[in-house]
């Protein structure tokens, strides 16, 4: 009882304090926006700038108040708890790579923004086929992307030269020959990992999957429940071979950080990762001066590149229609072509909208990005990532089974069976 009173007392205090704070701008609607794009996150400068611009443009009408939730997983955990408790979500949620849109949709918490999108021709034009896959459900537009996940790999030109390799391989046969050449020259070819979703490894596995028709179809499946197919088994068999012969000792058990460090240190010649990594190549706390000049960027063999809009921002249902309107305005602002140009300029974020021009200025500022984008644009095959399509929770199983695959304690068939068992028991749809 005592505690309840205490609680009630401080509640009154909070309400009074809140009322006093908001009375200064009586008509201004405040959007509380929790975001993980702060701190060490490479997008932090772009988001901060966009928040400022929005608050300037809508001064007196809307105002964004940023709530910093550092750490991608922390952000997803927090939103998930709010969904599980059926509490009102923040007005704008960024789905990112965390499957939050589907989760929120299941809770019937997402507002359909089709009307607002269709009223703005520029905005409506963004919704291409790949956008619809990511941001729409049942023909309704729910989310809007601000960034594209475009991923190839980086290689160390100096090490390639030492092994007598001219440039990135065009076919997978060539790619594996190059790995052998590197090995013969005494160079560890690949950066791989098993922890935190085995990011670098899963990119390689997915790209290899994409080289066959069956594999490509599988790669494009959202929330697959059956991993027992020939393409997947072959790809995992390849991964096993690579773990055993073509990577560093600490690949098994290592996370992205360890893989990246091996690349920064010149221990390995190749790492699969996206363009957000580029700024790190000239970060002297991570690598030696001049390292950036040694790095080349490439798309995957057989004309493949990861290319899909990242699940975008969505508006959640609120009691106050005016707040929903404000939230729609924010999503429109943050995913506009102008905003995506700003994000590209400040943080090197690859725009999700094809209408955003990659100017010469940008190419000069991020030469490696230009090199990569020109190769990517020539690619014929595109898909999103393998782990990005997994049912929730499967990534943990994937992490824990990879060391067994790597050591040979389990076969590729066993491995795929374990994934299938879990996915079939926990279908997301």
């Amino acid at each position, binding site marked *: *009882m*005592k*505690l*309840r009173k205490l609680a009630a007392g401080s509640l009154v205090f909070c309400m009074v304090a809140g009322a006093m704070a908001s009375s200064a701008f009586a008509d201004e609607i405040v959007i509380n926006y929790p975001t993980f794009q702060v701190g060490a996150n490479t997008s932090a400068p772009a988001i901060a700038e966009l928040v400022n611009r929005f608050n300037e443009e809508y001064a007196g009408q809307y105002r964004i108040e940023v709530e910093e939730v550092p750490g991608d997983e922390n952000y997803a955990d927090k939103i*998930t708890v709010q*969904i*599980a408790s059926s509490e009102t979500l923040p007005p704008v949620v960024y789905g990112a790579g965390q*499957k939050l849109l*589907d*989760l929120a949709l*299941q*809770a019937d918490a997402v507002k359909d923004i089709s009307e607002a999108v269709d009223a703005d021709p520029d905005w409506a034009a963004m919704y291409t086929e790949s956008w619809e896959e990511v941001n729409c459900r049942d023909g309704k537009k729910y989310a809007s992307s601000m960034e594209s996940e475009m991923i190839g790999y980086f290689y160390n030109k100096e090490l390639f030269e030492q092994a007598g390799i001219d440039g990135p391989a065009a076919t997978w046969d060539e790619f594996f020959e190059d790995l052998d050449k590197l090995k013969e020259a005494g160079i560890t070819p690949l950066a791989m990992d*098993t*922890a935190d979703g085995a990011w670098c490894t899963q990119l390689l596995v997915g790209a290899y999957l994409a080289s066959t028709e069956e594999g490509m179809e599988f790669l494009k499946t959202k929330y697959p429940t059956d991993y027992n197919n020939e393409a997947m088994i072959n790809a995992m068999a390849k991964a096993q071979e690579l773990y055993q012969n073509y990577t*560093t*000792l*600490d690949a*098994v*058990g290592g996370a992205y950080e*360890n893989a990246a460090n091996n690349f920064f240190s010149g221990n390995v010649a190749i790492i699969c990762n996206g363009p957000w990594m580029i700024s790190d190549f000239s970060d002297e706390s991570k690598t030696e001066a001049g390292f950036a000049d040694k790095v080349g960027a490439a798309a995957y063999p057989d004309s493949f590149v990861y290319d899909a809009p990242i699940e975008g921002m969505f508006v959640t249902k609120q009691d106050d229609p005016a707040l929903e309107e404000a939230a729609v305005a924010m999503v429109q602002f943050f995913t506009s072509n102008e905003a995506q140009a700003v994000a590209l300029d400040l943080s090197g974020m690859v725009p999700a909208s094809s209408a955003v021009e990659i100017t010469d200025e940008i190419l000069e500022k991020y030469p490696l990005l230009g090199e990569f984008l020109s190769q990517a644009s020539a690619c014929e095959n595109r898909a999103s990532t393998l782990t990005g399509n997994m*049912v*929730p*929770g*499967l990534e*943990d199983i994937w*992490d*824990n*089974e990879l*060391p*067994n695959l790597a*050591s040979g*304690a*389990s076969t590729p068939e066993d491995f795929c069976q374990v994934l299938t*068992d*879990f996915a079939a028991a*926990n*279908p*997301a*749809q």
Partner: protein
Amino acid sequence: MRKKEIPWIILFLLPTCAVFLLIFAVPLCMVIGGSFFNYRLMPKTFSFNGIGNYIQLFTQDKNFWLIFRNTLVWIVIHCVFHVALGTLLAFVLYKKPRGWKFVRVVYMIPNIISQSAIAMIFLNMYNPQYGVLNSILKAVGLEKLQHNWLFEMGTAFPAVTMTWFLFAGYTTTLVLAQCLSLDEGIIEAAKIDGASSLQIDRLVVFPLAKDMIRTTVIMAATYMLQLFSMIYLTSGGGPGSTTTNLPLYLYTTMKSTNYGYANTIGVVIIVVGMVTMFLINRVFHTREE
């Protein structure tokens, strides 16, 4: 019981009970109740399932018994050896040898540092490429014994165990405080009677510190029933399920949004906890007689 004390007794228990009701009672009911439902966030499902979750857990879940066994083994190791280590050090320190205050403070430090930092330290120490452990083995010519400690079937379990086993600061602190509060007169008297220091420890100090040792054993057991972040941050519970315990299994099940099943695991944890506490009390009780 004195009648006029009753209001005082109620008043003194009230804050504790209020906090319990507010924070623990609701979740407790939700865990137990939820375990009988098929409840997921994705795809959204909520339907009564009877004891279906329990049947699945006990009879169909391939990993459950391994995970259950891991949990029990860790509880036993922690309650027996870990507490013994901490108690032993407390019995050394209460005699106030030179430097005892320094040791008392320093030994607690690993329990003060955040778990994620400790996890990173062990990942670094066990790293197969440059980790201290493998470097030492190499330096003394035992390269054959080098392992990828946290990620090989054979070594993962002991390697994970070591991430908390040696850090018995809580036990030492508590038992030491209890030992120090003993009347020094009793010990002096025993010395004059010609008792050796081991005899004094065993016959005088231990019985008086026993209640606190029981407390630390129960704390150790419940610690092992709560612990998952250290495992999650080091081995992740793998390879396979080799280093998964019940709390970690609960956590990952919740991540797959299977809340009904997670609650079932929660009930198992609660039952294991209650049984363990009962047994610990029993062991200490029979020793008393």
